[in-house]
């Protein structure tokens, strides 16, 4: 068996083998795999729950693969929600003919990423669809975590916005790896688990209003969502958002705005002024936070909910959600 066949998804002998030889072997969840559901004990009573499906193309890219993303993506959603990830589930949809060696590489990346973050993958599922009815492999992960974070209180005027590092790395890494628009770059995806870094960084701080991971839609979309949901105005400083040189160059060539490119290992914080300095300092001590910066501040604690950019020309302009697809401009 070198490739996945439809029979691997029928629930019979081949499914059993795939589970035993690939998934259980990597995830070490034998005790759970035999049952309809995994059972685990949780100490606290407040749970965080999240899910994401991963359909990234190409499946392998500089800095990781779809499996890395599937694990870090869900861990990060729990981590920015102030939760300690307890357990994850993983659902695979495989296209008939998918190379088994690729599947193993993906699953092993998931296992090592989960181990690094101290999270168990306790339940899984595999479906196989006919050739041409999927694109290699899609992965869904769902995670539950135990909420530890205290409430950081309402967002106030003067609160700072911090990003934990350079933005757009994942977006440009994928675009380069996709090899469609002729872009050549060495940018690596930033995909990484933010847990337990985030719990260390926010430890003991009472003024962390909100954390987010600015994935699809990028930094701008994540901040617009924060502004709208909390009905506050945030003003970013043009040029303050940390950017890798190559990411800036790639955006210049293709006409993309890096604020709308996906990140997979960055956190966004809104925190009161005092805690912001503390967060920044703590971030700078971590490898994943060394490029962290304060990129803006809350200018109105009660508003219609707007994200503004203070331009170098001195004026402000409003930033909106990503609208439509990111497409290279005409010329």
């Amino acid at each position, binding site marked *: 068996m070198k490739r996945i066949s439809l029979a691997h998804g029928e629930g019979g002998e081949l499914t059993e083998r795939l589970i035993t030889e690939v998934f259980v072997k990597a995830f070490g969840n034998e005790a759970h795999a035999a049952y309809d559901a995994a059972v685990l004990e949780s100490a606290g009573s407040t749970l965080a729950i999240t899910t994401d499906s991963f359909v990234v193309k190409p499946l392998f890219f500089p800095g990781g693969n779809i499996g890395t993303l599937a694990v870090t993506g869900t861990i990060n959603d729990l981590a920015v929600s102030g939760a300690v990830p307890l357990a994850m589930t993983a659902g695979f949809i495989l296209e008939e003919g998918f190379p088994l060696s690729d599947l193993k590489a993906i699953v092993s990346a998931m296992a090592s990423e989960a181990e690094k973050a101290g999270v168990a993958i306790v339940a899984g599922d595999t479906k196989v669809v006919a050739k041409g009815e999927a694109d290699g492999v899609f992965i869904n992960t769902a995670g539950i975590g135990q909420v530890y974070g205290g409430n950081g209180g309402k967002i106030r005027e003067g609160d700072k916005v911090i990003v934990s590092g350079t933005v757009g790395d994942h977006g440009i890494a994928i675009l380069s790896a996709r090899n469609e628009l002729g872009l050549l770059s060495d940018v690596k995806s930033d995909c990484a688990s933010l847990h337990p870094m985030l719990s260390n960084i926010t430890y003991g701080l009472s003024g962390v209003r909100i954390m987010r991971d600015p994935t699809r839609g990028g930094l701008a979309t994540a901040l617009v969502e924060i502004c709208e949901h909390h009905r506050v105005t945030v003003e970013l400083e043009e040029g303050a958002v940390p950017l890798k040189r190559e990411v800036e160059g790639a955006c210049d060539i293709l006409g993309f705005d890096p604020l709308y490119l996906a990140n997979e290992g960055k956190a966004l914080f809104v925190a009161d002024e005092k805690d912001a300095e503390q967060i920044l300092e703590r971030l700078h001590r971590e490898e994943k936070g060394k490029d962290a910066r304060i990129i803006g501040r809350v200018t109105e604690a009660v508003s219609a909910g707007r994200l503004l950019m203070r331009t170098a020309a001195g004026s402000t*302009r409003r930033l909106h959600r990503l609208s439509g697809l990111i497409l*290279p401009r005409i010329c």
Partner: protein
Amino acid sequence: MDVMNFYTDPAVIRSSVEKVKNAARDFRNQHQRVPVIMEVCGSHTMAFARSGIKTALKDDVNLIAGPGCPVCVTDQKAIDAMIGLAGKQDTILCTFGDMMRVPGSRRSLVDARTEGKDVRVVYSPVDSVTIAERNPEKEVVFLGIGFETTIPLLAMAVRKAERLNLKNYSVWMTTKLVEPVLRTLLDSGEAEVDGFLLPGHVSVVSGEKSYRFLTAEYGLPGVITGFEPVQLLSGTYKLVRMLREGKHAVVNDYRSVVGQSGNQIAQSLMTTYFTFSDEEWRGMGAIPASGLVLKEAYAAFDAKRRFNVTVPPQRKTACRCGEIIKGRIAPEDCALFGKGCTPVNPVGPCMVSTEGTCAAHYQYMREE
């Protein structure tokens, strides 16, 4: 490039803004009104909006956008024809990203894709030739929209297809030229402008001297301008200074790339493959010899000759793009702006092209 740092340096930008404002105030003191400047190029429109300079100058300089967005100036019928091409069987339609969400009378290219048509965005026209090479059993058509900056690239694509002896590649030409539309605009008396910021990259191809008619025949000044914040401000300053001083020269403020006669190779490639055509412009009707099409000898690469697209009658909308590209109104003057018409649900091309004036205003200048 190190010089770029200067052009985007916040401190330089701020003092440049002040410099322009001061010059403009002098003009206002002189004329009891603000100077009216048309930026001909859609990328200038975008750059002014995005950099915040337009907002910063808004009380002192009236910057109005001209017919410089290639998608926006294209007649609706031509847009519908291009979208109609997506319906052809066994055809791969290649386009710049800009065209994807442009509303046709019935649907957009995104809609066509969504319905299963093979529509692909390419970065460069030459990439579409590669697609044709790799898909010999399909017809590959590139949507050839653009001004002088882009036309040489279309020539390059045809040249490559010719060399590869491809039988399945063609370009649907709806190109536009700058000089004829500026003349039409000025002749109509509709453009009440004091001077022009002239398109930097068109000028790379056509050269400084291609604007002599402005001063010689219309007595209007112009500055060939780059696209970085300080370049925008420098160009605007020089134009306002000329206005203040009553001069009407064509100043080349982008000499690092724009020469006296432009790019000779680009011009000669254009002459090799293309010939003049009368083109329909949105809101302006047909302008004689205002575009380029493939010569008879290259009919094999001419999608218009190879494919027949029947275009049903255009949908009538309240879109005022036609007036916007002539600089007659600002997007905010359109009743649909930001209401019935948004980038997600655009009514006119100006709202979705990355160089569209309504898009620039919606994205970067709308406070609401």
